[in-house]
């Protein structure tokens, strides 16, 4: 790894100051992607600002019907949270399936969302559930947050502090894992919420996480496995790589969606 300066931020102000002092600094919130990337020399931030010790960044709570998850809450903590299990069991289930146990003890929801890996699980959940990303500056709806491969609406010096989830009537996430990386080859999140049925797909899109109009149309009239399997999911705009062609992924999207509907 190239040299880097580590700063443990005690407060948001502290973190903003450290990020402002070094243009090349990055936020460290779990490091399960960032440190691995730095080891490969694919990233070389000259500074790392650790936000995990900032008060209020860790934990889950219910605010009426809204579930609030602190940005530095680990996947294991989300999976084991009584509030999450009560509010949106699908989210606890999703968190319990990220990577492996050691990764889940370190990786955080804020880190995953900010990184927006095209095969990460959380972006699919946020987009399907209509979540809101809370930062030190504003609140950003999931629809406006994710912006292509590894892209987000976050500005320089903007730090995610929490993610807020409204309650869904039904929700489930099912993925087909790439067995070596444990990332989703295709993951589908289905949710029935106040603004209708939303179906999101991770692992498959050329531009990262996306809503599947075909599945949403098919499931809106008929919330059933058969409807999901019969949806007209196109291979256009899907990734092709050594793990699978776009056509294979298109088929997997329908199969994962059908399983998710059955589980919801």
């Amino acid at each position, binding site marked *: 790894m190239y040299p880097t300066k*580590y700063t443990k931020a005690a407060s948001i102000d502290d973190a903003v100051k450290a990020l402002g002092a070094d243009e090349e600094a990055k936020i460290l919130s779990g490091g399960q992607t960032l440190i691995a990337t*730095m*080891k490969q020399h694919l990233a070389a931030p000259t500074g790392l600002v650790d936000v995990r010790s900032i008060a209020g960044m860790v934990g889950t709570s219910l605010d009426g019907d809204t579930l609030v998850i602190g940005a530095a809450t680990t996947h294991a903590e989300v999976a084991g949270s009584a509030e999450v299990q009560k509010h949106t069991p699908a989210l606890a289930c999703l968190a319990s399936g990220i990577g492996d146990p*050691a*990764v889940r*003890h370190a990786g955080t929801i804020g880190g995953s969302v900010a990184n927006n890996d095209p095969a990460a699980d959380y972006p699919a959940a946020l987009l399907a559930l209509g979540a809101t990303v809370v930062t030190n500056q504003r609140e950003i709806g999931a629809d406006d947050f994710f912006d292509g491969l590894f892209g987000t609406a976050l500005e320089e010096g903007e730090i995610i502090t929490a993610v807020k989830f409204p309650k869904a009537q039904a929700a489930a996430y099912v993925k087909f894992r790439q067995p070596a990386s*444990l990332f989703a080859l295709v993951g589908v999140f289905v949710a029935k919420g106040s603004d209708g049925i939303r179906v999101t797909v991770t692992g498959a899109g050329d531009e990262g996480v996306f809503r599947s109009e075909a599945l949403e149309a098919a499931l809106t009239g008929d919330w059933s496995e058969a409807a999901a399997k019969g949806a007209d999911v196109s291979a256009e705009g899907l990734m092709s790589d050594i793990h699978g062609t776009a056509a294979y992924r298109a088929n997997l999207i329908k199969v994962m969606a059908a399983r998710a509907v059955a589980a919801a």
Partner: protein
Amino acid sequence: MTKVKMTVNGKAVTREVSGETLLSEFLREDLRLTGTHIGCDTSQCGACVVHIDGKAVKSCTTLAAATDGAEVTTIEGLANGDLHPMQAAFKEHHGLQCGFCTPGMIMSGVDMVNRYKAEGREVTAEAVRHELEGNICRCTGYHNIVKAVQDAATKM
């Protein structure tokens, strides 16, 4: 450089570390605790798993500087005079061949059994295989590792 104070295998340790020092490097090169192995460079193999505040993490994907104030347990810290039940079970069931992955397997196994016991869940063979997804062994074919973890679960 960042000054870090932590407890490693019950002993207080204070050192200056650079920002990019990985916990695995710190344990092996500064503290000479070479039982923690580095098997891959991609955070996938699990040979480097240690416990930080009782939880299994990959020390090769953790910064030493971020571990300030933590309690770290490595494979060297498990035995207390006698082998830990997990170590004894790996020996008994021949849960290793070359032994390179074994420290990580054992640290992950102990973490898993502790969590399952706390939650009152049964340590089934299927559960062990699922929990050891982040630990890769190139020799054994895993069968004896699974047997060892299940056996240790009855003795921990």
